[in-house]
């Protein structure tokens, strides 16, 4: 296990080191100390290593992550795991705006709350938030799953495409073209899989969730939809 102390090294040196890791190498476990809210920590990793960050991070932690597991023992600023391709990012505290933005794959887990625009423009990432998400979450969400154990803010899933949303608590408002849909066995199995992957134990009943998705009425520009634009 290798430790990097950001009180003495720069974020640039840390990222460069992580980028130089060769496939199949044995430097697979990293600890990052004293992040102190700095930005772009552990971005662009391409190897299946484990990076544990002790403290709060700034914007874009784990940005464009591939294959790695990044664990933040603290809060994460704007855009955590933005455009993640694969792997896992786990925030033990809260996440700021645009968590998982445009993510294409992998799993983002937030133990606390996520702020506005969680999963904005998501393109295949799975996001599990154990607290609540803010307004405009899943805005223009194209693919992937967003699971929220507590509440969702206003305009959930506004302009949504084919992403699947599951919320257990209160939804304060649905966005344009986002509607509630029936929760069937296949969806429950999907939910169970996601909750297990996120370390949510079996005490959470998947039947308590409601599913939301696209009504698909905005898929073609039409004058009757003028009120939605």
């Amino acid at each position, binding site marked *: 296990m290798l430790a990097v102390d950001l009180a003495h090294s720069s974020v640039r040196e840390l990222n460069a080191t992580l980028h130089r890791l060769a496939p199949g190498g044995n430097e697979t476990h990293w600890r990052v100390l004293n992040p*102190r*809210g700095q930005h772009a920590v552990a971005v662009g990793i391409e190897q299946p290593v484990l990076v544990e960050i002790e*403290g709060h991070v*700034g914007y874009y932690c784990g940005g464009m992550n591939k294959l790695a597991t990044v664990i933040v023992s603290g809060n994460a600023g704007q855009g955590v795991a933005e455009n993640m391709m694969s792997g896992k990012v786990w925030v033990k*505290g*809260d996440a*700021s*705006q645009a968590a998982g933005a445009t993510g294409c794959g992998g799993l983002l887990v937030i133990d606390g709350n996520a*702020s506005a625009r969680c999963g904005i423009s998501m393109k295949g990432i799975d996001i599990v938030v154990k607290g609540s998400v803010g307004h405009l979450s899943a805005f223009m969400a194209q693919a992937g799953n967003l699971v929220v154990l507590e509440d969702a803010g206003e305009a959930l899933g506004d302009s949504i495409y084919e992403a699947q949303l599951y919320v257990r608590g209160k939804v304060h408002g649905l966005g344009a073209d986002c509607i509630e849909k029936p929760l069937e066995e296949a969806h429950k199995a999907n939910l169970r899989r996601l909750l297990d992957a996120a370390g949510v134990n079996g005490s959470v009943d998947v039947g308590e969730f409601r599913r939301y998705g696209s009504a698909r009425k905005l898929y073609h520009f039409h004058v009757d939809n003028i009120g939605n634009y």
Partner: protein
Amino acid sequence: MCGIAGLFLKDRKLEGDLGAMLAGMLSPLNDRGPDSAGFAVYGAEMPGHLKFTLRVPQLFDVEPLLKGLREAVGAPLAHRHHDTHIVASIPADREAPARRALQAFPEVTIVGCGRRMEIFKEVGRPDDVSRRFGLKRMTGTHAIGHTRMATESAVTTNGAHPFTTDEDQCLVHNGSLSNHNAVRRELIKQGLSFQTENDTEVAAGFITAKLRGGCSLRQAMESSLGSLDGFYTFVIGTKAGFGVLRDPIACKPAVMAETEQLVAFGTEYRALVDLPRIESAKVWEPAPAIVYQWELH
């Protein structure tokens, strides 16, 4: 655009460190606001007196100014120099003559006025601005600070934040308003005057007009939601505390932290990292379109 830092002390024992803590909060916000900086510190009140924070040009001969004020006040003048700014304590019943005396010096700007509030702002990198004014040595119960990246108006001292809205009140802003020119024209009709093209000055004027019309600060802030268009996080300093408001779309970042000793606001979490006991603080983001206020009791 900008960085904002706000600090409100619940624990009186920290008052001596207020300036040092605020300076530490502004430092990480240099990059996002490199053009100019300013801060308002709410320190000791001299009973029966108002503090005028005045800005004078470089190489200005202050003697005639001080003489003019002494004559207006009719007494020795307690004053302090901080780089280009002078804080002068004027007996509250001599406010009008003091203002008249100041009119004889058009190059001197009244940056702020209040029982407790002192405002300092200048062009330059925020760390340099803090150092020039001696922020680290300042003390008080609460303070707000701002680092500026000018968007559509010039980089001038007048364009720096905070803008004062009323006695003991001031406003800082991160974001970009989109209807400020129309709002400015309306406020001019109501008798306000403006020194810059800056959108933030308009927001400050809007709050001032509402307060003069009898609104509470909370009501004034709430009415800005309907009247000011664009993107904004406002932090407003008042005699007793501070207020925070984010616009309904809430794209501009805002982080708050609270401990038993303090409440802090920062545009980025990095601004908060050196505050005492921050590791165990409650850290959250203010919700959009909701007025938050903290006040001393």
